[in-house]
Structure formats: structure tokens, C-alpha cells
């Protein structure tokens, strides 16, 4: 298959949301037909590519609200091109590139550059996230309006990596984004309580002699911000919730009707601070790996709807940034290519949620939060053909060496994980087939679809 034109695809025998097997016909970037009509319609089309999907699940393409693509500035760690490939392989049809590039994405110029690089790559949709404050410095508001009105049409603003800790500035940011129908994604970390912090503060940090990162540093900011969001009537999204206390506060806020949404990373659903005992910096991440009790609370929070979405916080780093002393090592882990298996392992295999809920937290809810019209849509005729085929029965041993991301810093390396992405369709185009990268969506097609 070439990338110059996308032939229609007839998917045979896939199970949407893990339910009854059916045929799905993709053409012109949309789901043209499903079920018995699919084959009939296919006969009217030319050069239909048939894909045997017996035993595979069909799910809406995943949407990641939290990705670090590193470009511009840290192309040694990742580029939009390599990060997009990783996203496609991982089953993501849209990613949101965090603003902590160099220069910071705090102007229309930078967000337009990232947006254009994403369109050029064609492996997934790339939406730049705008910085809340100039240079992520937490001192004055960045040009949120200009970024919103740019060709990138930014709706999500975040200083991720840094917390908007000044309460007045946070209030103003929440108020200001109302004018562009945007929202603030907060990285909740009280900076004074986490000065020099290296890992979760608790039993393990006490023994390891590493400066601790107390849960209260996250929870106090979340508590403050949900109250601020309520006060100014704005939309607030909490990035990478990591503690049981945070889940409690968000549950309370939602009960009060506050317009808050929350995200959890795959790694916080599986890994705990016990892993730090060997001082391997691959486990160093912000927010830090917490305790087994936190993991349990996060899983239940995700299952019961307190937490809305999975966000990978995919954070690739060059080898030398992790091959050093723990205290000197960079924080972050790759996640795009392991997100689906980890969520299956922690949420599906445990019986905590079904595939409908999986589609909600990995696709529908993040798309709804961003107010995408072409992502996170149901698998129905007439909807955009952003979908993935998943083999939920297979298991794979994670080998970061085989990842499309430049980052090799996967905390899941060597682990046996269930499920794999067999195909990813981006506006009907198979960017991934047979579990391997196929070809990108042609630029003109992408432009046409994305701006619709």
C-alpha cells in the first residue's frame, strides 16, 4: 500500500468494543458501513483492501492529552516525526504536545511550528499545548489568545513540568482561557514542598536517603485549584494524578459540580516506589511513583469515573540523561508504545473496567475535554475512521530497543504485557498494519480532514 492515495479498507470480523464480530468498511476517511452492509458497499468500490481481523478488537483511536515530543530544542531526545511514529504504533490517532520545548511553546510561532511538523509527519494528529506562563516561569501569562487564534488553534494550556503555583496567576489563567473556550491543565506540585525532591516521600525514601516528595504537595494544589475553578467557573484539567488523596479531592470536587477532569498515567497505574530501591533512574519520574495503596486508589478512581482519562506523559530522554546518579538523572518515562498493554493489564485483566470504558478513558473522554470533533467518536457508520485493531490475547515482552520513539527509558522493559496494537487507522489510512508502521497519511489529506 502506498501513501499517495488511501484505498478503501474492508475490515473483516473485528469485534467493536470487544463485542460481536462485524465487518467495517473504511473509505474517504470515514466509516462507510458496518455489519452486513459493509461487504455490499465494498462491492461498489474499487481496489478495496481486505483485512482479516478475526479475533481482533476494534476500538476508537486513542487520544493522548499528555505527550512530550521534545521538538523544537531537544531533537536528540525525540522529534515530532519519531514521537508521531511512536504514537501511531501505540494506537494513538491524536496526541497533544506539551509546551516545555526549547523555546517554550508560549507564542503563536512555536505552536504553529509544532502543528505544522505534526501535519508533515502524518502518522498521528499533533496538537500543540500552549504554555500558561511565559517561559513556564510562572510569572506572567503567555499570549494565550494569540496561540488560540493561530493556525494551531490551541485550546489546552499547561506549564506541565512546572506548576502554576502562584494562586493569583492561576486564577487569572483560569479566567482568561474562558475567552477562547480553552482549559488549563495543571501540573500539581507545590514547589516549596518539593524542593530537591527525588522520589515519593514515605517508607522507601526514608530508607534510601532520597529527599521526599510528599503527596500533600500534589493534593494541596489540586484542592486549591478545584476551588479556584469553581469560583471563576472555568474548566480545569489535572495532569497525572498520582495519589490516593488526589483522587479523594477530585471525587469531592466532582460531587460539588466543579468542572474538573483528571488524568492518570499508565505507569502510575502499575508501578510503585518500591522499584526505586535499586536506584535505577529509569524509575525516576515526575510526579514520582507512589505506593501500592495509591496505585489501588488510582485504578478505582479511573474505573468509577473520578479520573477521566489516560494520559501517557510520554517523556523520552537520551541515554546519558538516565545513565547517571539518581539525583542527577532526568525525570520521565516513555509511554506511547506501552500505554495500551499497561491499561489492559491494570484495568481490563483485573476486571475493573470493560472495553466500553477503555474506549472512553483512552479516546472519547480526552477528545471531549479538548472538544475535538473528529477524534474519540463512536465506531459507527458516518463517523471519522480513526480507529485501531487490537489483539488483546497476545502477550509481548517490552523491548525499548524496538520502539519507534527515540527514548529508550521505558520502565516496563523486560515486562510481559498483554495486548498489542495490530493496526491504526488515521482518517481511514492504515498508518500501522500488522503491528508495524505502514505509511503516513498524505499531507493534503491530513490537512483536509484535520481542519474539518
Amino acid at each position, binding site marked *: 500500500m502506498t501513501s499517495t492515495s488511501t484505498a478503501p479498507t474492508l475490515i473483516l470480523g473485528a469485534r467493536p468494543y470487544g463485542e460481536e464480530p462485524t465487518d467495517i468498511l473504511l473509505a474517504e476517511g470515514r466509516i462507510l458501513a458496518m455489519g452486513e452492509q459493509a461487504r455490499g458497499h465494498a462491492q461498489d468500490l474499487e481496489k478495496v483492501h481486505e483485512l482479516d481481523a478475526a479475533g481482533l478488537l476494534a476500538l476508537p483511536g486513542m487520544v493522548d492529552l499528555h505527550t512530550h515530543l521534545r521538538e523544537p530544542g531537544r531533537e536528540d531526545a525525540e522529534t515530532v516525526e519519531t514521537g508521531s511514529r511512536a504514537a501511531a504504533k501505540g494506537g494513538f490517532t491524536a496526541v497533544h504536545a506539551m509546551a516545555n520545548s526549547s523555546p517554550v511553546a508560549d507564542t503563536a510561532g512555536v505552536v504553529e511550528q509544532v502543528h505544522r511538523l505534526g501535519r508533515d509527519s502524518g502518522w498521528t494528529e499533533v496538537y500543540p499545548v500552549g504554555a500558561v506562563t511565559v517561559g513556564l516561569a510562572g510569572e506572567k501569562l503567555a499570549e494565550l489568545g494569540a496561540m488560540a487564534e493561530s493556525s494551531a488553534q490551541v485550546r489546552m494550556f499547561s506549564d506541565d513540568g512546572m506548576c502554576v503555583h502562584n494562586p493569583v496567576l492561576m486564577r487569572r489563567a483560569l479566567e482568561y482561557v474562558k475567552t477562547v473556550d480553552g482549559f488549563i491543565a495543571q501540573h500539581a506540585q507545590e514547589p516549596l514542598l518539593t524542593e530537591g525532591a527525588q522520589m515519593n516521600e514515605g517508607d522507601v525514601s526514608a530508607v534510601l536517603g*532520597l529527599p521526599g516528595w510528599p503527596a500533600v504537595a500534589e493534593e494541596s494544589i489540586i484542592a486549591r485549584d478545584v476551588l479556584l475553578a469553581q469560583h471563576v467557573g472555568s474548566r480545569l484539567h489535572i495532569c497525572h494524578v498520582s495519589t490516593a488523596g488526589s483522587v479523594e479531592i477530585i471525587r469531592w470536587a466532582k460531587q460539588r459540580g466543579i468542572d474538573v477532569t483528571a488524568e492518570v498515567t499508565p505507569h502510575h497505574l502499575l508501578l510503585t516506589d518500591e522499584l526505586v530501591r535499586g536506584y535505577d533512574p529509569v524509575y525516576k519520574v515526575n510526579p514520582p511513583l507512589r505506593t501500592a495503596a495509591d496505585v489501588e486508589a488510582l485504578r478505582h478512581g479511573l474505573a468509577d469515573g473520578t479520573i477521566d482519562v489516560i494520559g501517557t506523559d510520554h517523556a523520552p530522554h537520551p541515554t546519558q540523561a538516565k545513565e547517571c*546518579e539518581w*539525583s542527577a538523572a532526568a525525570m520521565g518515562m516513555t509511554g506511547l508504545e506501552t500505554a495500551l498493554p499497561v491499561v489492559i493489564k491494570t484495568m481490563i485483566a483485573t476486571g475493573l473496567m470493560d472495553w466500553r470504558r477503555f474506549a472512553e478513558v483512552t479516546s472519547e473522554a480526552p477528545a471531549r475535554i479538548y472538544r475535538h470533533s473528529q477524534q474519540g467518536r463512536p465506531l459507527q457508520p458516518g463517523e471519522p475512521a480513526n480507529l485501531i485493531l487490537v489483539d488483546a490475547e497476545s502477550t509481548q515482552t517490552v523491548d525499548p530497543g524496538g520502539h519507534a520513539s527515540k527514548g529508550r527509558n521505558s520502565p516496563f522493559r523486560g515486562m510481559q504485557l498483554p495486548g498489542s496494537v495490530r493496526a491504526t487507522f488515521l482518517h481511514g489510512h492504515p498508518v500501522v498494519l500488522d503491528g508495524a508502521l505502514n505509511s503516513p497519511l498524505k499531507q493534503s489529506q491530513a490537512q483536509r480532514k484535520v481542519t474539518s
Partner: protein
Amino acid sequence: MRHLLSTADLSRTEALSILDTAEEMAAVSTREVKKLPTLRGRTVVNLFFEDSTRTRISFEAAAKRLSADVMNFSAKGSSVSKGESLKDTVQTLEAIGADAIVMRHWASGAAAQLAASDWTDCAVINAGDGTHEHPTQALLDALTLRRGWTAARGEDPRGADLAGMRVLIVGDILHSRVARSNIWLLRTLGAEVGLVAPATLLPVGVQKWPVSVFYSLDEALASGPAGGPDAVMMLRVQAERMGGAYFPTAAEYTRRWGLTDDRLAQLENHRTAAGAQPMILHPGPMNRGVEISAAAADSPMNQVLDQVSHGVSVRMAVLHLLLSSSERNTA
């Protein structure tokens, strides 16, 4: 035993083996010929990323008494951000032919990382890593405590543990690698441990440690079945902890947690179950007038100079046991 990284890794048997070997090493130090041929032709590198002349010369003396070749590598301030990485430094030392790396590092866990890496086959001895551990300090403290504990009973120290001994560790537990290493080793050897500190200088979760915790030194000094401790270990208060961040003033610290003349008098009058005076230990260098009064620093109960000489014996024992270990590939 392949490396010495943490006293938490030491079994009772291993710990006693080190202490018993150290006793023999101490005996050698009293002979006319203080040198042993044990490590002839072996190379020990002292790799110090942080200044510590005391620890370095102690390891140097230990290695030299065992006839090892010693190289001192001061890499202070070195880190990824400042140029050469730990990996490159260590691979250089490996290429030079080091058999053991004695490492002092500002980063907690650096020695463990080195031992777990494939950067080197050297035996790794942790000579203090950040605020994590300082196992040879704890071993020399244990050797000192065991000497006193058995001497009071007229027993041979060899093979003895510290069962029944009550040791108070006073000061900045939170940031002390000496305290951590001592706590695990003392517990392994059967001693009871009491920690005494302001709550700001105790780690979160200390309640789960196998120790008792006191906020009041006076209360701690009067506790226990004998109405007092068998030994008191005073930790150095770092200058950067003073000035209001962890406790209001040095004077308030001294009043509440310092080994003052009054508290010294109380210890002098106390008799342990074996009828001896309690021992006073300090890892040095002492802040006279802050955590320890001048009189307490100079008291005959104070073991600080014995600790120094025991340091050489213990480090000889560790070098001997690690470098003559058959686990190391000799091919």
C-alpha cells in the same frame, strides 16, 4: 560478599565475620611489622566525589597495610552537568586495572548503581553515599561498641554480638548516612536502638523502623530497664541545617539535644547492667559546644579516637574479605 553497599545487606554472620577479622587486623596494627602481604599486587582506588580527608586516609592506611597499591581519585564536583559521567570515570579506573573501588559520593545510591552496572567488575565499597549509608562507619562503631560491651563483662569480643545493648543515636537522623547504617547494623547485631531528634530531623515513616523514637534527650537518657543507655552516639549537626530551617537556633538545639555538661554528669553517674559507664561515640568531626560540650568531647567515656583506629581495622577487614572473595572472576 561481593560489594559492601549497605549494612542492611549484611547478615549477622557476615557482620560478625567482618568484626572478627577486624579484631585480627587490630592485632596486626600492634605488631612491629604492621604490614600484611594479603593484597599484594591488587589495586584499590579511592574515588571521592566529595571531600572527606578522614575517610580517605583511613581507607588508604587500610589498603596500604594490606600491601595493596592505592590510587586516590578526587572527582569533586564532577557530574553529568559538569562533564565526565560516573560511568566514564569508572570505566577509566577499570582500564587502569583497579580491583576495588572505594567510593564516596554526594548522591544517595551511587555505590549501589555502580555495583549493579556493567561498567566495572571491581568490588565496590560504599564510603558514604549522599544521605543514604556509610557502612564502614557503622562497622567501626560496632567494633568500638563490642569492645566496650564485652570488656565490661570480661569476655572475648570475638564472635560476640551486641544482644541486650541499648544505644541512643542523637541528632540529624533524616540526613545522616551514619545513622541509617548504624540502625540496620545494630539491629542485626541484636542491640536496641533509640533515636533522639527534633521531629524535623526524623524521616517520615520512622515509626515503622525497628527503633524507639524520642523527641526529648533527657527522657531518652533516663529510659530503659537500667535507667539509662549503654552507649550514646552523637551525630554532627551540619551548619546548613541551622538558621531556622529545621530548628530555631543552634543554642536551642544544644539546650534540648546537645550532650551538655549536665547530661555528661548524668551519664558519668549512670552504670550499665555490667557496671560500666556508658560509652560516648561521635563520627567526627565534632562541633564542640553545639551537639557536644567540650567536657564531653574530652571525656574518657568518649571513644572518638578509638573509633578512628578501629576505622582502619574495619576497612582492612572489608578489603580483605571482598578482595579475596572467590566470587570474583579470576580467569
